[in-house]
């Protein structure tokens, strides 16, 4: 942390490449089939990038830079380009081998090293990746750095060297205030991510993208959880549809009620 309150803020946005949210994944003999399946930037990471870009639009030169970082296979460079096209300035790609699994703890420990190198003031991440659904990296990173955290943010305001965050909790919203540096994870309601325009996609190709090897970070990325098996969930029995036409609604509601009685739920 800087000695005086920062008049400029460096942002770091860790992102992940995941199977596209609209894809219905299939479970094969070796787990979830990801080869040949459409991948994209994890939706919550998209929201994180958007929030970083909006902060700059709002705070202008107070935002010194926006750096995106990913730890992933060679193809993960695509999502870095997407983030650059959305408005990030620079990207860091910590490359791991295709198919190598890096679990949240490994990601958080690797990010800690990146944070020590880049010295950001604010880290914005997605609240969860839609593939492993762990929802851990943000909190782990905050714990490793001993920085304050605001998980599941739906509103983020920067006030000098402090941030005020409304976070989504069970039953409503909670507002927290904390000093920078801090870690924030984004919830769905934080913003609506923009589409990258074609000129910006072209410009993004010229923005700096630094490649690093996992070994450079000197972090042990070996998974602590061994996946013994991955199975498809049990299929539900196809239900009977009751009725079609709106003039039969009354009768069919009766049918539903009697079926619920049979099933003992009424």
């Amino acid at each position, binding site marked *: 942390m800087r000695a005086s309150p920062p008049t400029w803020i460096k942002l770091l946005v860790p992102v992940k490449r995941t199977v596209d949210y609209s894809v219905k994944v299939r479970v094969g003999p070796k787990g979830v089939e990801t080869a040949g399946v459409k991948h994209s930037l994890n939706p919550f990471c998209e929201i994180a990038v958007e929030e970083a870009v909006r902060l700059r639009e709002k705070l202008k030169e107070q935002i010194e830079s926006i750096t995106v970082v990913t730890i992933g296979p060679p193809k993960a460079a695509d999502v870095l380009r997407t983030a650059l096209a959305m408005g990030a300035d620079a990207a860091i790609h910590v490359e791991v081998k295709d198919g190598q699994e890096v679990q949240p*703890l490994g990601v958080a420990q690797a990010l800690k090293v990146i944070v020590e190198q880049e010295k950001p003031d604010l880290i914005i991440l997605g609240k969860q990746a839609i593939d492993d659904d762990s929802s851990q990296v943000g909190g782990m990173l905050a714990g490793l750095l001993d920085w304050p955290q605001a998980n599941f943010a739906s509103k983020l305001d920067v006030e000098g060297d402090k941030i005020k965050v409304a976070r989504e909790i069970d039953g409503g919203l909670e507002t927290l205030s904390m000093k920078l540096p801090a870690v924030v994870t984004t919830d769905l309601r934080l913003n609506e991510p923009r589409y990258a325009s074609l000129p910006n996609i072209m410009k993004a190709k010229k923005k700096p993208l630094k490649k690093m090897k996992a070994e450079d970070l000197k972090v042990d990325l070996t998974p602590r*959880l061994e996946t013994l098996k991955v199975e498809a969930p049990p299929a539900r029995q196809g239900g009977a549809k*009751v009725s079609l036409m709106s003039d039969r609604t009354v009768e069919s*509601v009766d049918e539903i009620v009697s079926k619920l009685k049979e099933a003992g739920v009424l």
Partner: protein
Amino acid sequence: MQRFSSVPRAFTLARRLYATSSSPSALVLIEHKDGKIVPASLNAITAARKLGGTVTGLVVGEEASTKAVVEGAQMLGLDALLHRTSPALAHALAEPLAPVLAALVKSGNFTHLAAAHSAQGKNVFPRVAGILGVQQISDVMAIESPDTFVRPIYAGNAIATVKSSDDIKIFTVRSASWDAATSGESASEVDAKAAEDVGKGKSLLQQAEWVSEELTKSERPDLGSAQAVVSGGRGVKSKESFDSIIFPLADALGAAVGASRAAVDSGYADNSQQVGQTGKVVAPSLYVAVGISGALQHLAGMKDSKTIVAINKVRFDLYTENKSRTDTPLHLLRPLQDPDAPIFQVADHGLVADLFEAVPELTKKVEEAKK
């Protein structure tokens, strides 16, 4: 994998006892709100019991506001109950709470640390895992052995069985997959102390400060633990109709009210009511989906419900070639059961009808049936 499951049970047991030096000893964080135990914590206790060793409960917070919670927790038949208090723990923020949990796990030689996969569990546990350098296991649906857990991935479209190599297993529990722990016969003894490490060693600036909260007031059952849930989606069309159509049916069924993401984004319902991959995961006896088409992300939050009833509109498709004509007579329109609406693929009972007619009718019939 095959090899693993074909190993005789006695052998796996022997192997397990050999592999762990002592039997499992679990610490369960008991979440509370307004002096009451949050129901999802009761499911976490049941999961911790599945480990087969001792289960210790932990209540943290301000001294005054946790008194009733401790009294309630004493009756849960736990092997022991820890009570740690500090004014810093008033709002269960992650910064003071995580070091308390980490210190307790280490000093108490616990092999497992569990909590509900609630907003609080998801907020605090990763921080504890980071501090302890442990890979957390999120949203546990089943426990096969003290180091082997079953959890959903890809919005519940795949179920993974994972084996942890960490000394301490930190996990959050999917409440919909476990029964709630019930009261025991005798009260457990309470070990009450002030919390020693609330993370204030370094500097106050490294803590977040609680400012305010806005909670949605509701007299209806809690969404996460309700026996019946009525959810509305985009098809409900407005906040007014959400209130006038969904609420009466929920009240007739004694159900909690849920919503799809579309309904929340359109402002019909509060975001804490969202059911799905990124909202709440529920598995009530009865789930009624009204005006919900059933996106993968929504199904992830409700497909384990016992009985699912779906009420969705009739979709008319043009029978004619000329699809641009809007004045096509009704008899040329063909009603479709809309096999594409994925909600009907998981529903036990589906009603393809106008929800504005069908739901009030259903509400009336349910009320009559209850008399």
